């Protein structure tokens, strides 16, 4: 596949992720922050997000698995962190799950929280897969000597 085609594929894929709600405008903002001084900025930040989220999801699993009584304050604190990070990188569906999750923390509803945890794990996996696919496309473009296109914010 030649570079132009790969670039078009990358643009279409990014647009579809936004259209389907996986990513929002904040992700596009991140891409705009990337420059020659920081050519790997987006990958770096998103990789931090992956590490951070996996840790938080483990902590949440542990916190909700307490037969002696769930500490909802702790659960809420973890969800708040995850909500913040996902919002900051534009992982919209993960963020939205966190919003619902926090409501159930407030209600101290363990069952609902467990369901939310499942959901947020699923959304996180989806987001991770799609972002990794996007980054693979980027690597192919760069390997072929091309550059990552700029996406306009209004489309």
């Amino acid at each position: 596949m030649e570079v132009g085609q790969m670039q078009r594929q990358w643009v279409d894929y990014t647009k579809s992720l936004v259209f389907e709600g996986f990513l929002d405008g904040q992700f596009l903002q991140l891409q705009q922050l990337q420059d020659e001084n920081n050519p790997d900025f987006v990958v770096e930040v998103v990789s931090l997000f992956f590490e951070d989220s996996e840790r938080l999801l483990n902590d949440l699993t542990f916190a909700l698995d307490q037969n002696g009584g769930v500490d909802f304050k702790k659960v809420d604190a973890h969800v708040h962190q995850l909500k913040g990070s996902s919002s900051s990188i534009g992982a919209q569906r993960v963020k939205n799950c966190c919003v619902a999750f926090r409501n159930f923390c407030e209600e101290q509803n363990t069952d609902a929280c467990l369901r939310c945890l499942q959901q947020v794990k699923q959304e996180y996996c989806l987001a991770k897969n799609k972002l990794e696919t996007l980054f693979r496309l980027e690597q192919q473009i760069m390997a072929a000597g091309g550059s990552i296109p700029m996406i306009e914010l209004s489309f």
Partner: protein
Amino acid sequence: MASSSTWSSSNWVMESGDVPHVLAVDDNLIDRKLVEKLLRNSSCKVTTAENGPRALEFLGLTSGEQNPLNGRSKVNLVITDYCMPGMTGYELLKKIKESSEMKEIPVVIMSSENIPTRINKCMEEGAQMFMLKPLKQSDVKKLTCQLMNRDCEI
């Protein structure tokens, strides 16, 4: 969306041509990295801190300690997250405003939650501005322009 006080009354507005040194405080690693990039893109020197106590230490406001810069670090702006475990951004703001050495330093509060009572509380305590997360490059550019007392076109 941001609330702000006037800058002209602040005697921390800099001489144009100086590079602002900003202390960015946030317990979230991703947000720290982001705010750092946004500030660097606006030509600032950036120091990050992961919590209030570390920030106070950097500012030389930890009680009982001698600040190597003789009680005045060269920070031109503090930007801090509101929700942090332990010392909140609001508490950090209070401590800065209560200090004799640092009370004039502009402090900007960031939050992902748009809660009017929270915003008012911070503004009343002397916050320069309240900014909603996630921050945009245009917001940060505007902020640093004001700090450097320049006319900016956004």
